[in-house]
């Protein structure tokens, strides 16, 4: 783990005169400056934010997981995801993904609701991982065939990482679901918490319609059936009931988020925002 930066008086002065000076940025951040088409930019940021936010969430387990080996497992997943986010956000912002990661406010984040949900206990973290990694695996598998060379290249590499995430999450779901009375209860509660965020993964809005029409990205509805069958198969093996469908929660792609995301960003962004340009 890198040590914290040494904060010199000049850094403090710089922080005080910084344009955001500890206050949230105003106006359009980077979208306006971006030369890429808006819908393509939007898509890169959606994928990048999904990976970034889930990576940050998983990293919160570091030092707290149930067992040293699990600690490393979750940290490895987090690093894979943050690596994907780095490529995606760099691509969206002319090589400066950090600007998007650390200097955007909550309303400009485009990740889905599922990934920003708090870790809860290990059962809920695994439920979130199962539901997201299964989706991400199917998506990246299709995306690897995109005619867009950046997206197909990224997906071809990431699909191997995500395949492992999916497998690991399924393994844990089965062990917790088909484990003790307590582990089964916690796993079921975790799934119940996350279930209402599934429909958003398959939502097709105007941005998606445009990209799908141009055959640039896959239509997620094309693998929704496969997704549901895959989740059902894991739950059956885990001897868990499928949670009852709940009112879907949508809006993350348009910047409408749960109250949890702001807290996550506060932790993730406070150093670069307080000491812009700090390095170590």
């Amino acid at each position: 783990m890198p040590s914290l930066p040494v904060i010199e008086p000049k850094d403090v002065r710089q922080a005080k005169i910084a344009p955001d000076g500890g206050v949230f940025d105003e106006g359009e951040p980077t979208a306006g400056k971006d030369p890429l088409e808006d819908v393509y930019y939007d898509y890169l940021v959606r994928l990048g934010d999904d990976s970034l936010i889930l990576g940050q969430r998983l990293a919160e387990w570091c030092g707290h997981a149930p067992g040293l080996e699990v600690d490393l497992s979750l940290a490895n997943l987090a690093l894979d995801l943050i690596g994907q986010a780095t490529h995606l956000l760099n691509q969206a912002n002319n090589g400066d993904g950090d600007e998007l990661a650390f200097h955007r406010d909550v309303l400009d984040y485009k990740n889905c609701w599922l990934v920003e949900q708090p870790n809860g206990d290990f059962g809920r973290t695994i439920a979130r991982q199962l539901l997201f990694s299964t989706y991400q695996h199917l998506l990246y598998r299709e995306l690897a065939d995109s005619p867009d060379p950046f997206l197909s290249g990224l997906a071809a590499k990431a699909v191997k990482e995500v395949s492992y995430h999916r497998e690991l999450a399924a393994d844990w779901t089965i062990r917790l679901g088909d484990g003790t009375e307590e582990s089964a209860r916690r796993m079921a509660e975790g799934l119940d918490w996350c279930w209402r965020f599934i429909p958003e993964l398959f939502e097709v809005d105007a941005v998606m319609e445009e990209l799908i029409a141009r055959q640039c990205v896959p239509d997620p509805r094309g693998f929704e059936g496969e997704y549901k069958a895959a989740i059902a198969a894991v739950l059956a093996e885990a001897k868990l009931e499928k949670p009852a469908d709940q009112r879907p929660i949508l809006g993350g792609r348009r910047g409408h988020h749960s109250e949890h995301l702001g807290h996550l960003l506060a932790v993730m962004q406070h150093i670069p925002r307080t000491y812009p340009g700090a390095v170590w």
Partner: protein
Amino acid sequence: MSETAGGGHDWPLWEVFIRSKGGMAHRHVGSVHAPDSKLALAHARDTYTRRQEGVSLWIVKSGEIIASDPADSGPLFEPAEDKVYRHPTFYDIPDVVKHI
């Protein structure tokens, strides 16, 4: 570590062996705790192959390894001490021959 979960304390121990590249033997690198063989493989992968250490993993339940008794080390190993002629050191090995 979490105070609510088992924390891995009741998980069995597994020994981990890695083949660093094709043609090399698997070498013992350490151990992991895991509830079963499949997760032991995952834990070994996540713990010991993060820096491209290998191309293949073997996992063996620690309890199933048959080990020699340290108390027997005299009869087992000392007789070899004075048999220097068993070492292949009486001829030169060409530089191009690797892995000996």
